[in-house]
């Protein structure tokens, strides 16, 4: 593959990752969210592998496999099983004002672009332009966690944010040192374990995974 083609492919994948972030942001059906998340992981893994191939930084292959294994297969599978077990696969989340959320999302993308401008100027890596989209993915995940009222969607926002961080590391520096990436993956695994337990607790305690009901702890006057 020529370098120009790699850059273009990487850009396309970056754009697709951003697109999946937006899709996550506005999707209501739980299973669809899960599918979109798996796609995002797939694009991410592919992009990492392509960069690894083009730059000869071989530990990126390991990261790519890790991403594909965890974010495309393992985590969606665990969530799928959980959702079935909790019998919430038909739940559709009510959302308020999707267009406004999208507008905020677009504003966040532009904001990320401006924020990463100094890095774009300094960097000479072929992936430098995708850093803005990586930060945007982080921000959109954050937005999703803030706007969603369903525990599963909040977790998906969290995981999308993690995807964005991983993507940022690949775009800015061709990946963090191996020990850090492995550690982050381990943390993610533990986090997956914990939110799995949480889903059960919330579901049995509140009879639903809608976290809107969890609003007791407020400042009392």
């Amino acid at each position, binding site marked *: 593959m020529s370098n120009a083609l790699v850059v273009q492919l990487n850009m396309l994948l*970056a754009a697709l990752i*951003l697109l999946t972030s937006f899709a996550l942001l506005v999707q209501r059906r739980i299973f669809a969210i899960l599918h979109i998340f798996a796609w995002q992981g797939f694009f991410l893994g592919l992009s990492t592998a392509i960069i690894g191939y083009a730059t000869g930084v071989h530990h990126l292959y390991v990261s790519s496999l890790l991403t594909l294994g965890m974010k495309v297969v393992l985590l969606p599978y665990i969530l799928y099983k959980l959702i079935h077990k909790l019998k919430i696969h038909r739940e559709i989340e009510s959302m308020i004002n999707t267009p406004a959320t999208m507008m905020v999302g677009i504003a966040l*993308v532009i904001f990320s672009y401006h924020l990463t401008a100094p890095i774009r100027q300094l960097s000479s890596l072929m992936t430098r332009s995708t850093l*803005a989209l990586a930060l945007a993915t982080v921000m959109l995940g954050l937005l999703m966690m803030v706007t969603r009222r369903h525990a599963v969607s909040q977790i998906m926002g969290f995981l999308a944010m993690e995807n964005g961080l991983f993507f940022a590391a690949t775009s800015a520096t061709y990946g963090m040192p191996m020990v850090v990436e492995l550690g982050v993956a381990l943390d993610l695994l533990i986090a997956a374990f914990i939110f799995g337990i949480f889903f059960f607790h919330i579901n049995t305690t509140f009879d639903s995974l809608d976290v809107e009901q969890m609003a007791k702890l407020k400042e009392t006057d």
Partner: protein
Amino acid sequence: MHPFAIELLQLLMLLGLAPAFAGWVKVVKCRLQGRTSPGILQPYRDIGRLFVKDVVLAENASWIFRFTPYLAFGVTVLAGGIIPLISVDLPLAATADIIALVMLFAIIRFFTALAGMDIGTAFGGMGASREMMISSLAEPAMLMAVFTVSLASSSTSLTHMVTVMAHNPLMIRPSLAFALIAFIMIALAETGRIPVDNPATHLELTMIHEAMILEYSGRYLALIEWAGMMKLMLFFSLGIAAFCPWGIAAGGDPPDLALGVAAFIFKLMLGGVIMVLIETGLAKMRIFRVSEYLGSAFLLATLGMIAFFILE
């Protein structure tokens, strides 16, 4: 060939091919759904029959009602003179750019809506209000999508855009991919196809475009139908010109022109098949969901524009 001759040829092609294209879409759709098709020439027969029929006018119809079909037809033909179909050497194209083109379509819609309300029937008003809602959402998205393309060629002139696009080396451009998806979504809405509107139905609850023109008959209806077919074809031509203009002639050489015509017809037929696939795959959505649908189109178009700045 002289540029004006090309222009004339293009207009004749538009006028002549538009019903055939509508017929082609119907044929493919029938095939796909396992029905026998009325044949590719059916739209010609429909228009011809309408032209010989008498016009029935409501008593309180004003000049707007009678004027609108001519306006719609004329403006559509004018728009057809701007979009390069077979060659970029178009004298008329210099008079208007892509923004003017969007505005031309807006004029048609405005007068059709007025005419829909003119008689004062319930259906006409309902159709007009729905059409206005859709167009108010679709127009900004449409502009956003074409702006993305014009960013890539740094011009809003259609012929210039086409030249740049046709001669650039092939590369993957996420911005154009986004803009294309947005464009397809908007085009489906603007030409009244599934999932926004269903051109084949007169079901009172769901129709939009058909509701506005329910009171027309005879030659008026023929003109409006014909203009509608041309509009459908023009949206395809616009898509082809903006996103895959390869094969279009650069000047007036007859062999180039012949290639341009062949390429155009081939792409048009292919586009028709794609549209039928989309239409068959989707169900018509409730009118309240249309705002979300067009909002997504706007989002995509904006993302395309952002992706252009960030990535390219």
